[in-house]
């Protein structure tokens, strides 16, 4: 579901006419997303450069230096289909961009972004998680021989001594975190094949890794502080994801207080009606429960109007998943993002508390409230 941020952070790369033109110029066949693919780690932590888009997305909520500090850092990979025929080492076959934000209660949301072609001042590995743009980097480290293992959703505690490192710096803030797994990763949809629409090709490969233990350093206003908290890691890759009549989506990924995890999204049409929805809840014992689309209902309860963009966001949502009744409560109302490079795209993405049948903290994303997300 990270298409949301993908579009938002890289809108310039994605206008539909561009895609059409690229196809017309060089009929490039991206591989389709099909059911039955077996995700194998750590290889599938790496990039899948043949597909059109891919992202590695980390969100988290801190407990120290103070509660309810939210952070997110996402790396995107995009294969525009241009310059495929060039032989030069600088050919822009793969483009990377990254987007980071920091939510500090009582303060404005801070954000920062970077972009690069993957072979110039940036790098992405195809064999393991390692993606960087300049000094921004997300990578996996493991102290033992990293034997390939099949990702699974077994309830056992995760016993490996592997961890992720997450590093970024910008003028308003910088961080350097270690993300240590406490559980096994969570495959969304059917063993990682996650549907996004009625057509079978409207799908992505989608792996989540909830409940990562966060330690490290956060620099804010030039002051370094030691941090502790919980993070959520998503890795998703796809070629085609968005149904024609969808204008945006509401998505959330929540680390539950009891050790469980919840992911839910819906795609909306221009009337605000649900086009497609999916959700999965893994409880503290490790049992993963999927919810079919007809059991999922998103209802706006409270809105926040952005004084800058004028957009009205349903920051307080009621989400019904079967019998579960859940509500979001944002840590800050104003967690609107305005990515500027190169054209402004505005959306809401921020830390929320989840209350109701399940309690926890995580990230909510609301897109397509100012204009249709141009995917």
């Amino acid at each position, binding site marked *: 579901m990270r298409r949301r941020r993908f579009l938002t952070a890289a809108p310039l790369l994605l206008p539909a006419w561009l895609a059409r033109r*690229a196809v017309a110029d060089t009929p490039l066949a991206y591989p389709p997303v099909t059911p039955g693919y077996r995700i194998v780690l750590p290889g599938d932590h790496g990039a899948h450069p043949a597909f059109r888009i891919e992202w590695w997305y980390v969100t988290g909520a801190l407990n120290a230096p103070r509660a309810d500090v939210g952070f997110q850092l996402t790396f995107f990979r995009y294969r525009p289909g241009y*310059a495929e025929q060039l032989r*030069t080492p600088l050919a822009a076959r793969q483009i990377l961009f990254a987007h980071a934000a920091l939510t500090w209660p009582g303060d404005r949301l801070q954000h920062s972004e970077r972009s*690069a072609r993957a072979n*110039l001042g*940036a790098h992405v590995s195809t064999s393991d998680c390692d993606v960087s743009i300049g000094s921004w980097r997300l990578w996996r480290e493991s102290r033992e021989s990293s034997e390939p293992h099949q990702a699974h959703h077994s309830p056992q505690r995760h016993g490996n001594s592997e961890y992720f490192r997450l590093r970024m710096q910008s003028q308003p803030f910088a961080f350097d975190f270690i993300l240590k797994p406490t559980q096994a990763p969570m495959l969304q949809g059917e063993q990682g094949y996650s549907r996004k629409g009625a057509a079978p090709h409207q799908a992505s490969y989608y792996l989540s890794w909830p409940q990562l233990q966060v330690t490290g350093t956060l620099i804010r206003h030039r002051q370094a502080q030691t941090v502790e908290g919980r993070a959520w890691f998503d890795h998703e890759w796809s070629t085609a994801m968005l149904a024609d009549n969808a204008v945006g989506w509401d998505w959330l990924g929540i680390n539950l207080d009891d050790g469980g995890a919840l992911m839910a999204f819906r795609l909306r049409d221009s009337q605000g009606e649900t086009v497609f929805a999916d959700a999965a809840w893994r409880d503290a014992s490790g049992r993963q429960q999927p919810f079919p689309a007809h059991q999922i209902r998103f209802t706006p309860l409270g809105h926040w109007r952005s004084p800058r963009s004028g957009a009205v966001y349903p920051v307080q949502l009621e989400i019904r998943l079967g019998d579960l009744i859940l509500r979001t409560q944002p840590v800050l109302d104003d967690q609107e993002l305005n990515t500027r490079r190169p054209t402004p795209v505005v959306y809401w993405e921020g830390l929320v508390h989840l209350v109701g049948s399940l309690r926890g903290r995580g990230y909510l994303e609301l897109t397509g409230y100012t204009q249709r997300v141009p995917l």
Partner: protein
Amino acid sequence: MNTLAWWLISAQFHSRRTATWLSMLAIALGVALGYAIHLINQAALADFARAMHRVQGEPDAVLAARDSAGSVPLAIVNQLAADPTVALVAPVIETRVRVAESLPAVRLIGVDLFSAGGLMPKLLPRPAEGATIADWLTGGVYVSPTVLARSDLRVGAPITLRRGDRLWTTRIAGDLPAMANEDLLLVADIAWVQEHFGPSDAVSEARILLEPDSAPAEWRRHTAQRLPAGLLLREADDDSARVSNLSRAYRVNLNVLALVALLTSAFLVFATQLTAVAQRSTHFAVLGVIGLSPRRRLLQILLEGLAIGFPGALLGLLMGYALAVAFTQLLGGDLGGGFFSGGVPLIRPTLTATLAFCFLGALTSVAGAIYPAYLNRRQPLAQALKIGFSPTPTGEAAHDHRRLKRLAALSLSAVALSHAPPLFELPLAGYAAIAVLLLIGIDAAPLLTHRLFSAGASLPLPATQRIALQNVAQAPLMAQVAASGLIVSFALTASMVIMVSSFRVAVDHWLDEVLPAPIYLRSKGTPLPPEVLSALRQADAPFVKVEGTAHGTLTLDPRRPDVGLIVREIDRQHPAQRLPLTGRLATPPDDRLPVVWISEALQEIYGIHPGQLLRLPLLGRDVELFVGGVWRDYSRQFGALVISRDDYQRLGGEFQANDLALWPRAGQEASAMTWLTAHTDRHGLRVSTVGEIRDLSLAIFDKSFAVTYALEAAAMLIGLFGLAVTLATSVWLRSREWATLGALGFDRRMLSRAVMLEGALIAVIGLLIGLACGVAIGAVLTHVVNPQAFHWRMPLIVPWSRLLVGAVLTLAAALLASRHAARQATRLPLAQILASGQ
């Protein structure tokens, strides 16, 4: 008292309207010239800096190869990008390509869209006009408005870019509206530029932005240590310094010339105010008797100097501004120095400079009034009341021997100054020597006048002539005043004529030496197409000999302009056959040691000498070279070095000729030209005969000195004003004398002739001394100022015939100026003067 001061000033302005206006105008002219030169240079520099910022942004550091043939490996760019201190690395590939017959080779800049946005946004297409990323990444080219205006290329149309034998046909995806008029450039995606023109695995330059809290200087120092020898990590500010250094000597030179124009106007103020003091000696004596203190009398004259200088300076500022605007509109920002090309820079006066020039103008005028003010203070009141002005108050007779001592001391100091080394790389001592030489000329005037005309006055001559001679001989102060303006202006003009003609003769000879072949083929900045080269190698090519030259640059010091690196097909053993060597040849101790021959400028700027071993950052590494000799180069002011093709290739360099010198077979000159043109036409290359290149070079030379002629003309004009004003005063002062002569039977014609003869005699003195000073100053310009400022050395050649013509013309103009005074003499109411005589 203030009322009195004001009343005196306005009375003075009323009664001596012409002289006051002329003085004011002269000050205005001096200020205007200086101010205009300053404004134009300032605007051109700012324009250049803006153009650079448009294309380069404002990075904290720039990484590039020292050798124009070198490049920055991609691995190093990626390594720098991962440095936590680095916020952004924007790599650039820049080259020159031909796109249209109507255009010279234009810059093609390959940029990375993703990094360029943060540093060089003006190089990117307009984001408002829809996302152009697809166009960009699929190889669209963006062109500056000037390229569109000067060719038949259109947005949306195909375009073919050529460099040597490389061709790239693509389409024009859009324009670059942020680029100003003078920018002739194309921008495209860095990968496409690399694909078609190289270098593979490297870029031309990486522009680096650091994180806001970092220490750039420290980072640069630390990072530079880890870089290979061929790369240079420089400050972006270095480029501004380099641009400024590029034209510094030229600017200083022009400003000094403008100052000389201002100086001559000080003499005019001197003449005017001295006259004013003389004419009003009776008024001041009366005022003195009723209580005006000597100090107030002094201040009054200084105040009048200010009253002339301040409005004059204001007028000069206006004129200067207008002149600068008109000049840039008509001719662009290049004052003839060739440092700034094309474009109309915007004239933006700064407060500091404006105030400074205003102050300078007022100060000059006050300085001119100092001696008259002193005389006014020292006037003996009683005597002044009785018989009027006394030019040498309190018996201050000119003591010849004291004057001689002073002249000797001045001459010694002039000699010493002309031998002093440059200060701040400018010939400041040389300029001081010129000022001292002018002082000597002025100081020598009364001496010479006295000696020459005292002797002449004793000759048996007709009355008119004798009276004129005696008048001049006996009033050396007036003669000095009248002559000093002429001395200064004629000395300046003569010296410039001498310097320019010496230079022109030297350039002429030099062109003979550096252009030995009858035909030249030149492709500015791009390598020659291999098909042309291979056609020349065929047996049917009508040439006996073809020699290639490749031009590159080398950065030796990031704050100085680049040095020319010239690779030539030249015989290592006999460089003198192709280079105008100026000294002895040094023989390398080892035959395998590569040899370079350095230009005089390189020798002087960097202190390199023949026979020395030199380490240079060549071909990406430190190379040891032997300095085989020094040659004369008038075209690269900042130094150049020549290396033979064989040595260059032995060092691993690739020889790609930009220029060819061709010797046609005997008797086939015309057909050779046709043959060559047929082969080169479609490549847009220029074939020139040696004659055309000579003519073009000399035309450029003449154009570059056009501004100095304007300054000379202004100075001459002011000098003649001075003569006219002083003569008129001298006539007025001696009105009783004329009246007496009239009563004794002198008719108007005789009176008029006496005055004109007086003027002519003074002019002759002024011209003679001016000429002598001019030759001396010309020698200083040629032997001190030119080598120190521009590293140009040349023999001194005095064009006597042209100087003589100039002197005769000036004399004629001086006679014309004396007619004005003579007419005044003939209009004097003689009877009335005699009747009212005390």
